């Protein structure tokens, strides 16, 4: 399966899962809300131009917004993590240029510790920005701190489960592909 087709399917699946499964789960508490959709941005291939990355993240966030009924709420955080992603990968990638031999970020291509750092930092950025937007419209400071921490914990757990369930075989890039 080509990388393009795979990512189109992921685009649709992530939005449907977020909108019709995770958003429908009865909430345990006001702060505990499962958010997983942004993993799509984290899984995008290495070789995308940075501008393309921003535009894809924006369109993805906007599609999510229309299911949530609050335009701009998800688009802004998605663009932020898409902007930070290349800088972070530059620091985390091993010196012998992994991006030349692997297609996308995964446990296999980055290694356990760097991949975990990558996920934690981007999740933190995404949630802080998302809750910050909610906070400017509604809520107070305790809401902000509490929700960032609680949602982050749930998201990290969900990402961990997803990585275990859908183990992505890290493909070596070859000239044939």
């Amino acid at each position, binding site marked *: 399966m080509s990388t393009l087709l795979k990512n189109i399917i992921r685009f649709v699946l992530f939005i449907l899962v977020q909108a*019709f499964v995770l958003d429908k789960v009865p909430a345990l508490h006001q702060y505990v809300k499962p958010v997983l959709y942004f993993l799509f941005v984290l899984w995008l291939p290495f070789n995308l131009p940075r*501008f393309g990355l*921003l535009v894809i993240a924006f369109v993805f966030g906007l599609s999510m917004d229309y299911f*949530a009924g*609050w*335009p701009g709420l998800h*688009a802004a955080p998605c663009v932020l993590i898409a902007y930070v992603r290349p800088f972070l990968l530059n620091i985390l990638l091993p010196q012998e240029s992994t991006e030349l031999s692997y297609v996308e970020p995964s446990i296999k291509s980055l290694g356990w510790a760097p991949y975990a750092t990558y996920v934690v930092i981007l999740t933190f950025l995404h949630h802080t920005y998302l809750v910050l937007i909610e906070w400017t419209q509604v809520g107070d400071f305790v809401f902000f701190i509490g929700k960032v921490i609680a949602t982050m914990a749930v998201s990290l757990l969900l990402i961990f489960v997803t990585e275990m369930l859908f183990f992505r075989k890290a493909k070596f890039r070859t000239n044939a592909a």
Partner: protein
Amino acid sequence: MRNIFLFIRRYFTLISFVLLQIFAWAMLIKYSRTHEAIFANNANEVTGYVSGKYKTVEDYLYLKKANEDLAAENARLKNMMAISFQGPDSTQQLYIDSLSKDTLGRVRKFLWLPAKVVNNDVNNEANYITLHRGRNQGVEKDMIVVGPNGIIGKVVLVSDNYARVMSLLNRFSKVSAMLKKDNYSGMVEWDGKDPRYVTLNNISKSAKVAKGDTVITSNLSEYPAGLMIGTVANITAEKASNYYTLTVKTSTNFFTLQYAYVVANLLYGEQKQLEAQTPKAQ
């Protein structure tokens, strides 16, 4: 000039990042002010369609509950019908007036349109509901949405076949309400915590409130007056002010919404027009 182009080329990604952020914030700010958004129309049709497909499956799980609700509502309405009342005095007879025009000169103010709920959130800070009934079927912005057991919300976006409703469970929602017992009025809002409870503010401490009291829409609200909102579940006396803060258990169960009525206030335009004409300084 050359330097400008060089600058743009050098910082192209940063500039596009900032532009996209500005674009997102523009939508956020415009949306929270007017509840209208760019592309809202098309997007509403697409998300409405997908939600409709999903809902057809989910419907089967709640069929029994929906039937019970509708049957209960039917029973209540049948009890109000003229045929249920009979006087023992046989000199008086009840005739059903078949004239379509009300000879007492009363004008129809509210028109009730049934609609199917195709999407419903309860977990967000701002929850919205999608109805499968839109502009082509007579729904307009600012119309009121009522369920079989109580009020639900207000239409904020309309496309050709779907309407987006701001649920009562929305941080931006405000409904004028009163206690059924002694007509003290206040504002019903949602604090984002529990989808089963809303808050009723600004009830004066002179009101005699008890747990279990009924809360209904007031005659000041856009809703038809006297519709059920819920029952008082908890009473907190604000120490700093002269008001109670009441926790109200909603009579509508927002977890199992199936059908709703869109209520068109046919005189709403006239009322708003008159209110807009009020002289500012007298």
